[in-house]
């Protein structure tokens, strides 16, 4: 079944089509939600809210772009709303105006699987985590991030540079630990 047909059937309220749409995107979108939150339960809550929005806003979807990108955008917005509304996250989402931190140009080797990398991203402070996800993974510009989070693009740049540096240090540490383990094993 083509995506367009799937959308049409969903708009007609066919339960089977709705289930198919869910099955098509649920796993990848839960991965996305997982990166923005601190627990799998919260990630599933975001996923629920996001899919309800997808179904109730499906009539707004225009076929000029891929459905996956549209669903992804809704999930990101839902995740950001969740972080803003949830007190646990809202208190940690503090974006201080800091001097611009130069972005390091080191590019460590990512010899870890996706889940390990996602776990490291989730260990970043909430503000760093959010901006890193938006810029490095979703590809939003700092101006767009500034508008989404209500901060200046300079703050977004600064926070991202710090987040990136911190994550790279963890990745290098992680690589070091793995190597150490390998050597110890030998």
């Amino acid at each position, binding site marked *: 079944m083509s995506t367009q047909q799937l959308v049409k059937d969903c708009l007609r*309220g066919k339960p089977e089509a709705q289930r198919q749409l869910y099955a098509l995107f*649920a796993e*990848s979108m839960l991965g996305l939600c997982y*990166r923005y939150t601190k627990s799998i339960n919260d990630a599933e809550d975001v996923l629920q809210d996001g899919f309800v929005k997808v179904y*109730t806003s499906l009539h707004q979807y225009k076929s000029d772009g891929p459905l996956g990108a549209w669903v992804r955008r809704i999930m990101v917005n839902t995740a950001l709303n969740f972080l803003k509304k949830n007190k646990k996250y809202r208190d940690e989402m503090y974006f201080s105006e800091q001097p611009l931190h130069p972005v390091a140009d080191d*590019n460590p080797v*990512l010899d870890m699987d*996706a889940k390990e990398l996602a776990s490291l991203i989730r260990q970043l402070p909430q503000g760093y985590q959010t901006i890193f996800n938006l810029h490095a993974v979703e590809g939003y510009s700092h101006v767009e991030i500034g508008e989404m989070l209500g901060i200046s693009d300079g703050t977004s740049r600064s926070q991202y540079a710090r987040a990136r540096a911190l994550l*790279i240090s963890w990745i290098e540490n992680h690589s070091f630990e793995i190597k150490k383990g390998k050597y110890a094993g030998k």
Partner: protein
Amino acid sequence: MRENEFEHRVQEKMDHFHLRPSGTVWAEVERRIRKEKRRRFIFWWFLLPVVLAGGIGITLWWMNSKADRSIAHTSISSEKKNNISIRSAENKDSIKNSKIPTNHTTDTAISTGITTAEPATVSPQPNDQEPDIKSPHVQNGIKDPGAGISRATTDKISATQQAVKISSTRQSKKKKENQPRDQGAPITDMQSALASGGGNSSKKDKQIPQTAALPPAELPATAPTLPSIVPVSVTGTEPPAATNQTSSSTTINIPVAPIAALPDDTVQRSVVHTILPGTDTANRTMAKLKLPPLNKKYWVLGVHIGRSSLLDGLGSRKENLFANAFQPVTGGSQLYRPSVVNPGISAGISFYKMHTVSKRIQLAFGFGYDYRSTRMKLGQRIDSIRNVTNSLSNNAFVSNYYRPSTQSVSSDYTNQYHFLYVSGLLDWTIIQGRKVKIGWRNEWQLRILAASTMLHYDYSLPGYYKDNTILRKANIFLQSGLTISAGKRLLINPFVEYSPATILKNGNSSSHYGGMGLRILFSLKK
């Protein structure tokens, strides 16, 4: 760019990062979609009659007000124009209460002037020309037309005055062609006829031939609608037998009011209700023209009786309605099955304050009391304190409960509901006959559940107990039905009703109040 290499790698890794959600996620998503869909359905279901009734009401109001404006505009504009004639004549003549000499006619323009504050008496000036008023409107339209009215003045009427009359007549002709007979046309006909008589020139007669030569057959419909010849006292030495009677000496007094200070509606009503009383023709025409009593308010007492039931959505009655405080039936004992909930009776009393908005539309606000009931079969009553968990996950203690009905022990139980409510309604008269009026009535009620004896079934007991904390206290009810008049004060109102909100606070229930009944409405107006 070296910086982007890291981001690309992260993106690639994350694109392949998938997690399998637990099964409850889809179940919850599906439930919320259904709920949203139902909420929208209810919203539109609720909105549809509102929009429909509103649209019909506005259309009818607009049509009525358009017709009213047409009448008022015609009468007022003609009166204003004719009033100019009076003023012109007054300025020139400046004579009050004078007598009309023989062979002279009154200026017919005075008959329609109502804008001067003081009674105007016009004495026509000598005129060499004999009036040639062929239209018998004057004869029929004025109770005692008087010879003077049938006569025209006057060389002293200015050219301006004549021009006004002619334009008035032309307007009259146009409106007469376009409007129905019982609205503006009769008024203008009369005025035109009078104006044509007043003009009294053969040239004018040629310009307004329709006015001057209306067939007598049209007279009954047209003549009495002459506006604002309000108390016209005509005294003559002998009653006029024909329009060309010229030998009477006539005095005409016309008390008039300033129309500029009156709203359209007032002017219109005063016109309709004061003109030309007495004649049958006039009465008939006035009856035709009788306007609805706008903004009239009165109280109505309503009593109703009917059948009340619980509906599953908009569908049929649901069995096992209160199973395990609304949990699925699975796991229930075959020995104890909860009773089917059967419909019961409903009855109530209500008061409405009716507002007549237009001829066909009535709005009302009211309040009342409603009793509803449903019936079911119960088993033995157990007087024992039990700790139960209701569907809102609240722990509660019940001091007694009922076992489900069995073959050996079975008794009837009535769930009772007592509601107090306020309501608003719109009544649209669809058929307005002389004897029977049929309308469509839509009522919206906000009901507060004041008390209830309703029992809930709990599989864990198993048994029934009373727990009103899970019942929704505030409910919206929609009622729709016909109103059929039975006499001057009684209305019969068969109706159906439905509550879009579920009867329970939690969203899992799909049970709604519904029913049908018959209401008798008694008007308390004098």
